[in-house]
């Protein structure tokens, strides 16, 4: 369910809209449900609307956690 993809906001447009891109693919999305949206923000885009802001710091922590969980058993990451 709910195909949603993180995209980067590249330009704020009037009326709660914004331009966003993913690897060179650009689109116009509704960002009226994201507070204080700014260029450079990563948001989760679903059916043409941003439904959440992606927190890069938390993303880094999650990846660190996955890496450390991976190394706990045998001390290596393959």
């Amino acid at each position, binding site marked *: 369910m709910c195909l949603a993809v993180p995209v980067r906001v590249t330009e704020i447009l009037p009326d709660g809209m914004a331009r966003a891109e993913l690897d060179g693919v650009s689109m116009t999305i509704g960002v009226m*449900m994201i507070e204080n949206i700014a260029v450079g923000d990563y948001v989760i885009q679903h059916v043409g609307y941003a439904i959440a802001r992606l927190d890069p710091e938390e993303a880094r922590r*999650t990846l660190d956690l996955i890496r450390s969980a991976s190394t706990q058993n045998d001390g290596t990451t393959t």
Partner: protein
Amino acid sequence: MKHVDDYRDGDLARSLARRIAATVLPGRSYAFMEFCGGHTHAISRYGVEDLLPASIRLIHGPGCPVCVLPVGRLAAAIDLARTQPVTLCVYGDLMRVPTARGQSLLTAKADGADVRMVYSPLDAARVAEQNPARETVFFAIGFETTAPATAQTILYAERMGLDNFSVICNHVLTPPAIDAIMATPNDDGPPRLDGFVGPAHVATVTGITPFESVAARHSKPVVIAGFEPLDVLQAILMLTQQINDGRAVVENQYRRAVTARGNLLAQEATAKVFALRERFDWRGLGVVANGALRLNENYDRFDAEKRFSLSTPTMPDNPACACADILRGASKPAECRLFGTVCTPETPIGSCMVSSEGACAAHWTYGRFRDTADRPRLEPARAV
């Protein structure tokens, strides 16, 4: 793709899989339901099950809005498009879903009905704007994730004074569906589920709070997890650890996008436009109380069901279909006698075969080789 590819790393997957294998207790088995079709899709598409120890079983839940959509509601929309001068806008997911006598939106379109695929509800509103003399009806589906987008579009239509735009609302809600699964016993007692991989994008909107009461009500751990395969593996590890520790709480693996309270602006939009539906007949699950949304009275004029006095016939599934058991983990897709014989993605009989995210369709499309006893022993494909 930033914030995507990182979570598809094969090397990390293998070591995380070893960690999971080291965490499962000998002699204990684990049955986890991933509620969401998005998880089912990721699990099937990336072959996540091949990385799990045999003692962990994944049960594919009903979290696919196409699968659980009552056929009668789709049939009513098709009938509307065939008999009234309306433009019916739908998501591509629905185009091939068959109703009675093999009819679908695709066949209705072939017969001349004005059916258009859209990628966003806003596209449907634009169709209405561009064709002011014609009625445009948007067939809305989706969980809590998608409802705010529909709500925003209705609010847009209100602002723009679009009086030729209306919506058939089929939005459904996650926690009541989980309750329904847990409430329905199988032939041999309540479903044996040890925990839930909780919905990623639903939770971006709702926050994790609604799932805390789910975990408490059923004394089962819930780990809200992202839709990438490493997210799923990490969630499985977290669930396994909770089971081993005897805990049953909500944990948030998808912290990069999910907060405790969720997206308040999205919740506000949903609350402004919609109201709870007391009864909604989920395909495969049956009637779920307060498990769906309708437009509230303030937005009557955008409610296509009222505008066109739509009646939705009840269309029961084939009694031989095992979807109800499959959704509760009591049966596996291959155990259904319709699976792969009369019921395939081209000719789906039950809800689990309807969309690629359904348990049966995912198993058929991506995993059915696992059922073959003489499964060929495979050497990894080598680059030259």
